[in-house]
């Protein structure tokens, strides 16, 4: 049970990093990135490839972050003139293209089989302690990211992003370079998400094209929306709620003796239900973004 809890929390932490990355783009800057998971994919694959080639873990993560930020820069460029819905779908398309490449370029990515046997971090430690160390490491990163994000959000840069999110024209006439704001927001989000992707690859010992399924991005969106778009605490709450629901379904099934089709349906349905209920009754999320009062 302890192990299970550890791993659930570790997953939650990893997803929290991704969700914070998404929030930086979607919550602050209003960029509907539906391809966010591509950054995680880059992080995971970079880790897989570098580590398999004998490189150290940090080099894998760094490569992943660099690649993701480069991709982020390109995506933001693409956003120069696209309307936000259109941009969202364009990012979705980019993630799909990347996934197709990952599935087909076997020489680099191991094809549909993916890259296996990626060593975990802290393998030197004895049994429960390696998992504990991993969790502590992840949570540390989450705390750091949350602190950074909330600092960004309430400061000058965040203000610029939020203004761009709602009134881009006004922001431009105040002298903000929207293009650079966008690039920086997306690249920041990309870096966070890529770190998470790299951790994910280590934790699962595996990197595969399924990491980049559109459904994964939707899951991130679900977390962010349940919690509260634009609010750090909200995002973290959202991650916890979704992760808890995912974790609990198998137990609920054992407890109430559901049939397998029902249990399967429940796994998808429960998240849908929570999300819908949240949206209907608390459309700004469980912890909504507050108007920031300046004394």
């Amino acid at each position, binding site marked *: 049970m302890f192990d299970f809890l550890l791993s659930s929390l570790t997953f939650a932490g990893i997803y929290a990093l991704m969700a914070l990355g998404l929030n930086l783009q979607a919550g602050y800057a209003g960029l509907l990135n539906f391809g966010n998971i591509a950054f995680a994919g880059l992080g995971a694959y970079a880790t897989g490839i570098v580590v398999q080639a004998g490189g150290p873990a940090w080099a894998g993560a760094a490569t992943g972050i660099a690649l993701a930020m480069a991709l982020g820069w390109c995506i933001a460029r693409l956003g120069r003139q696209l309307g936000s819905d259109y941009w969202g779908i364009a990012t979705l398309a980019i993630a799909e293209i990347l996934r197709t490449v990952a599935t087909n370029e076997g020489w680099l990515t191991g094809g549909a089989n993916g890259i296996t046997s990626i060593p975990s971090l802290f393998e030197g430690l004895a049994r429960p302690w390696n998992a504990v160390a991993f969790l502590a490491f992840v949570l540390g990163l989450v705390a750091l990211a949350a602190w950074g994000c909330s600092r*960004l959000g309430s400061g000058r840069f965040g203000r610029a992003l939020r203004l761009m999110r709602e009134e881009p024209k*006004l922001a431009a006439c105040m002298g903000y370079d929207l293009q650079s704001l966008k690039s920086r927001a997306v690249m920041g989000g990309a870096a966070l998400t890529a770190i998470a992707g790299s951790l994910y690859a280590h934790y699962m010992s595996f990197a595969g094209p399924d990491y980049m399924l559109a459904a994964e991005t939707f899951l991130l969106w679900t977390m962010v929306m349940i919690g509260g778009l634009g609010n750090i605490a909200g995002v973290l709450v959202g991650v916890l709620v979704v992760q808890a629901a995912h974790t609990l379904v198998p137990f609920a099934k054992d407890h109430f003796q559901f049939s397998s089709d029902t249990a399967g349906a429940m796994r998808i349905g429960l998240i849908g239900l929570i999300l819908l209920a949240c949206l209907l009754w608390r459309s700004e999320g469980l912890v909504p973004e507050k108007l920031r009062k300046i004394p």
Partner: protein
Amino acid sequence: MSEKLLHIAGLGKAFGGNVVLDGVDMAVARGEIVGLLGPNGSGKSTLLNIATGFEALDRGSIVFDGTPIEKLAAHRIVGRGIARTFQLPSMPTRMSVMEVAMAASTARHGVWDTLLRPAPARQAEQAARDKAARLLRELLLEPVRDLPAAALSGGQKKLLGIVCALMGDPQMLMLDEPTAGVHPNLRNDIVQALLRLNAAGMTLVVVEHDMHFIQSLCTRCVVLDRGRIVASCRPDELASNERVAEAYLGAAAHQRAEAAQEAFA
């Protein structure tokens, strides 16, 4: 009065065959307050949009403070010292009035500055806060400073637009109908505020339809009609200019203008 701050030459613009600006030449000297007048649809806003980089021009040149700016993006032009307001202002729903005003300050907004907040960044923030508070007070927006900016009434949004433009200490301010929908009493306050800014060295270009406003503010008026400049004169000469009277003020303008003058005498 001799130094030309803004120099527009041969400006032309058409939207899909519809010629909106047709060879406009116009110069604004440092320290002037120029009123840009003209019938609806004559191209005033378009001129402003082009000058501030929000719209591309078809031909012509614009020189500001000695450098050509016609190819620059909007934010770069702002950086060079031209600020503007919009004719139809829209404001964000999830930012407070104060925040919007603060956002308009031109202090740096780097990621690292925001993240690490070194002393200079903190001081800049404090300065911006003081300035925003002062401007809001001057334009009677103090009571609504913590409301979402989008919840302001039409006129209040206009005022907030002016506050934003003033946050950046521009060399030149371009106002697109700053008082349409603003309460008359406040118009006088705005005139006073603008005159003060002018006295402190700011150059103004104002698009406006309210003749009282124009007359109490401007040092010179440029009248646009169907994309061409038809007059450039002192405000009090407007009513006697036939082209202007016919195209802009309307046939009965004389009597009405006089009646209005009388009423205020």
